[in-house]
């Protein structure tokens, strides 16, 4: 469903991606972990068509090296800060794409679908007419998730879904992501450095280190692996091959 083939990306002299390759089959949930500044977000942008890799190819839902407009019907994306549009009420944020383009929905139908999706992420209909600024961080994440699943896309992306949330709310969001992914049968790719997200969301784990996938394997093995880089990261140790000054 998602295939990355030898992705390279540099910014000036700094090489961020140095040959990232992976193949994510339909219905599987991959969690990409890695330290701050290791290129997780750049990888995500390359997969979404927001950033063009210097070399290498991305195939997503059968489309190779497609731009975001072509990919849009096939993907849903939850941004780190939710990235809700401040000027629109919650329901219009959720139904944003469905109200535009060919085959767009009418206002009434779109609002009712938005309320349905909001209910799916645990928000009541009263939330629909609020504006993003009136919501807490956790509620904004839920709205972002509702927007991501509004079109029932086959591929979902999550960028640091628990960033800025307290541990309880983080668990709620992780479980919501897991249940939504399972329910939709979607292929999911999550980037995070939160180990609870890894435990709750991942079928498979990949560790991004020095511009490439240093380790890949089943989620259960991520915490038992002897790999020194992975072990240092999952245990949060200050001593090890990953420098603390980055």
């Amino acid at each position, binding site marked *: 469903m998602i295939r990355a083939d030898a992705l390279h990306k540099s910014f000036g002299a700094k090489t961020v991606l140095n040959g990232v390759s992976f193949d994510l089959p339909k219905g599987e949930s991959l969690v990409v972990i890695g330290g701050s500044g290791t290129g997780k977000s750049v990888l995500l942008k390359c997969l979404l068509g927001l950033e063009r890799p210097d070399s290498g190819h991305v195939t997503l839902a059968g489309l190779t090296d497609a731009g975001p*407009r072509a990919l*849009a019907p096939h993907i849903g994306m939850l941004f780190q800060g939710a990235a809700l549009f401040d000027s629109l009420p919650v329901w219009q944020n959720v139904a944003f794409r469905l109200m535009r383009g060919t085959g767009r929905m009418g206002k009434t139908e779109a609002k009712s679908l938005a309320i349905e999706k909001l209910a799916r992420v645990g928000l009541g209909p009263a939330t629909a007419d609020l504006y993003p600024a009136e919501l807490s961080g956790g509620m904004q994440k839920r709205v972002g998730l509702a927007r991501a699943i509004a079109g029932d896309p086959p591929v979902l992306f999550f960028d640091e879904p628990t960033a800025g949330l307290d541990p309880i709310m983080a668990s709620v969001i992780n479980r919501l992501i897991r249940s939504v992914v399972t329910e939709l049968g979607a292929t999911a790719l999550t980037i995070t450095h939160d180990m609870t997200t890894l435990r709750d969301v991942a079928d498979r784990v990949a560790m991004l280190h020095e511009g490439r996938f240093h380790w890949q394997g089943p989620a259960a093995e991520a915490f038992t692996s002897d790999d020194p880089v992975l072990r240092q990261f999952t245990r949060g140790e200050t001593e090890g091959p990953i420098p603390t000054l980055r």
Partner: protein
Amino acid sequence: MTSSSPVAARLFGATGRATANAMGALGRFLGFALQSLGWMLRPPFHLRELGAQLMQIGWFSLPVVGMTALFTGAALALQIFAGSARYGAEFAVPSITAIGMVRELGPVLGGLMVAARVASSIAAEIGTMKVSEQLDALRTLAVEPMQYLTVPRLVAATLAMPVLVAVGDSIGILGGYAVGVSRLGFDGPTYLHNTLDFLEFWDVASGMVKGAVFGFLVALSGCYFGMNSGRGAQGVGEATKSAVVLASVLILAANYLLTEAFFSA
């Protein structure tokens, strides 16, 4: 000779780099302008967003443009009276006040006030959207930010500014009338008669054309710096400041060029 050569070389090098940077920035701005014009012609057209921007840029700028015009018209009448009295030509106060307002001060001061209010707000809004990944979110939702954000603002500012200028001209002339009648001893109907008799269609129309150009430049500057905003609060602040400065300079430069084009002998 030998000791001054490295200094001269450094000076030339610095001048060359500064010129190249300035040319590069100008090229990027012109490229953005052309790109924006290209997006204007491509559907879909976001009419609801256009309506919202017409309200934001046009309707909500009326108070500031109106107040500016009122006081400018009043001050202009006083100044022209003081100057014309030296030659015994006080009768020219209504006509020169009107011409000064509609040709120059209405569009230029209105444009500058809109630049301060609108270019800053556009740059800050789009810059914040960029920083908070809302522009990326638009793209993943199959909406091109240039089409959804830039085009409606450019069109709205270009359409709204001539109307703002026309309203500002009227209020400015009213300001001159109020001072003329209450402070300078003019007869009310005579003041209005002199104003209308000497004012020609092109005087008013040229000011409105200037307004349209200024509106386009204001929105273009705001959108350009917003879209290219740096990270964080400092980046957005810098973008906002640059948008207002560039919009103001462009208005003054464009005003000169348009005045040359419209009124040079």
